[in-house]
């Protein structure tokens, strides 16, 4: 019982990180209808930027953990946002309105570029970092296992909820959010009504990238080690989460992320670790067979 509770906590925490990445996927897909293959690698870039920032701040002698984290969050999110903007400008905007497969190949190319860029500039070895947020709260004592909630996990949940809260306010209450939703409904019409669609699309990428960077920071702190390949795996899983929740639906992306996190954690705990990814992908296949638009997605009714 305690063991299951622990898996639940772990799964939800992991799911939050996936959810943050998934939101970026779903936003971009909703607005321009393409899978941003490079999005997972922006997450990886965000993790590396966080690593650089934390190491640099430590070298400068800053010992206050909250301060270091706050600075790192802003730094990583800001620079990653710049990466997101650049990727969109270089690889996607010239191909907008073009035929469907070209942006996909371009995105795959960009993903390869990002991975190898980080590998070349930062070296191919894994990068470990000392745990910054320590401490556990025992929650439920079972017979030989005590479920614990770590301070790190609390930090992840709080940060994610805060960030998603700000993001939701942005999307539902601000003019920018309205513009984004309008573009998502009908890009051409939105343009005709005077919305600067290029600008809105760029901002979508920027915001998605910032969220992914936050996820990267959280991932770095939670797991303590990163390498240049984490983007691909996390990216595929986060996209699976976005599709599972129903692509185009923001709450769906978060829900999908939590689902994938839970599936992965429970499968590793009760079955085998090696096949945890297989479990997540298989769930995706099964869901899509019976619910082709995902859990919360809009059914794509074909007009005949």
């Amino acid at each position: 019982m305690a063991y299951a509770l622990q898996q639940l906590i772990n799964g939800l925490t992991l799911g939050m990180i996936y959810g943050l990445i998934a939101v970026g996927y779903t936003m971009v897909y909703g607005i321009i209808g393409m899978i941003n293959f490079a999005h997972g690698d922006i997450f990886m870039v965000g993790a590396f930027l966080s690593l650089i920032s934390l190491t640099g701040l430590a070298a400068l002698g800053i010992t206050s953990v909250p301060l270091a984290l706050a600075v790192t969050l802003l730094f990583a999110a800001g620079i990653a946002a710049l990466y997101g903007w650049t990727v969109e400008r270089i690889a996607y905007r010239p191909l907008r309105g073009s035929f469907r497969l070209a942006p996909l190949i371009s995105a795959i190319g960009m993903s390869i570029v990002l991975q190898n860029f980080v590998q070349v500039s930062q070296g191919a070895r894994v990068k470990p970092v000392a745990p910054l947020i320590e401490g556990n709260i025992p929650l439920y004592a079972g017979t030989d296992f005590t479920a614990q909630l770590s301070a790190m996990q609390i930090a992840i949940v709080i940060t994610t909820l805060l960030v998603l809260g700000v993001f939701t306010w942005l999307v539902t209450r601000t003019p920018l959010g309205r513009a984004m939703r309008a573009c998502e409904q009908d890009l051409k019409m939105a343009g005709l009504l005077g919305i600067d669609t290029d600008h809105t699309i760029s901002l979508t990428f920027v915001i998605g990238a910032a969220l992914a960077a936050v996820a990267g920071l959280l991932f770095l702190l939670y797991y303590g080690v990163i390498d240049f390949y984490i983007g691909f795996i996390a990216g595929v899983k986060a996209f699976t989460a976005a599709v599972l929740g129903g692509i185009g639906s923001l709450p769906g992306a978060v829900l999908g992320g939590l689902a994938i996190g839970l599936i992965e954690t429970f499968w590793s705990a009760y079955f085998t670790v090696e096949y945890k990814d297989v479990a997540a992908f298989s769930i995706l296949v099964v869901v899509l067979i019976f619910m082709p638009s995902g859990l919360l997605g809009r059914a794509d009714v074909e007009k005949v």
Partner: protein
Amino acid sequence: MPARAGVAVALRDAFLSALVALGLFGAMIGLKTDVGPSSLVLTPRPWAVAIAVGAVFAGRLALLVWRAWRPAGAPSPRRLAAAGHQAGRYLAPLLLTFALTLPAYGGRYWLDLGILVLTYVMLGWGLTIVVGLAGLLDLGYVAFYAVGAYSYALLAQTFGLGFWTCLPLAGLLAACWGVMLGFPVLRLRGDYLAIVTLAFGEIIRIVLLNWVSLTNGPNGISSIPRPTLFGLTFSMEGGPGSVADFFGVEPDISQRVIFLYYVILGLALLTNWVSLRLRRLPLGRAWEALREDEVACRALGINVTTTKLTAFAIGACFGGFAGAFFATRQAFISPESFTFMESATVLAIVVLGGLGSQLGVALAALVMIGGAELFRDFAEYRMLVFGAALVAMMILRPRGLVSGRTPSVALGTAQEISADLVAQGRG
């Protein structure tokens, strides 16, 4: 625009680009993290940043200058297409002749490269059936490549069967997998189909990696038997029953290499012939109609399910053949060779070639694999350049090298249809 104002605008643009580059590269290139004695340390590299930013500034400026001052009046697209079509008629036989005669003047290195390129050409032609003709976006083609390779390896190991016996079996098994993978995705469209096929490819790789009792896991399967020439082996000892003995020559490794080269050439040409035949037959036409408009196909009585499944199955079959060849050429396979990168590379070859064009795919494979080979000396930067090349190719020629479609049947003369009219499929 007066030259002075133009220069000022260009300089400002280049400066802004350099600023963005500074943001991008400043931390990532400028501060390298290294594993130090107790924790990570940062190594500042200001010169690297300066060079990178400078390169961006110069590059952007050059691009703007070239765009402003290049001669106006590019040749009209239709004349270019017609010229391209003419060239295409001579290019295909030329390439074929070149491929057939390569062993006569190419050394070991070129033969090996030729074998590699031809393997990807065959994979490209196989995937063209699924993506190019039927319009089904398959991001997990490597799964069939893996099934073919492992089928042959395991059949050879368990039952002692030879290459030529296992080749059709590998294709058949891969085709079965094609049908099995096709069933769940029948109702999926576009990017959903893409992600599920990608997931399938990853599932197969993970299973191959972890089902150690069957596949030997990450250690792979070795000592895979080589193909024989009508029962004659290419063994180096040159004893009875070997090619060297039969022809009365000294055993030499180049004999086997040349044989392997012709095997893959033959397999690739088989793929090509079958694809061209099918295009002219009702099945191929149904695939292309499916790509154009699935709803209309159903309204005309075409069983869309069967049509999609045959596309998956036949495409998978050729992938399986290629996989079996890969296993026999390397004599060793492991799950490392069957990653998503392979699927992405083959898809890139198909897209760069121009959907459905046989010649285009061959050219694209030549350019991409040959190009990657040229960069082999650059080690770390090779993949970086590869990725950048993918982006550049798509921006410059989103419709591929050979865009445009030739009709499979005509009352009068068949004229090429421009790529703008041809759909790329939603399913």
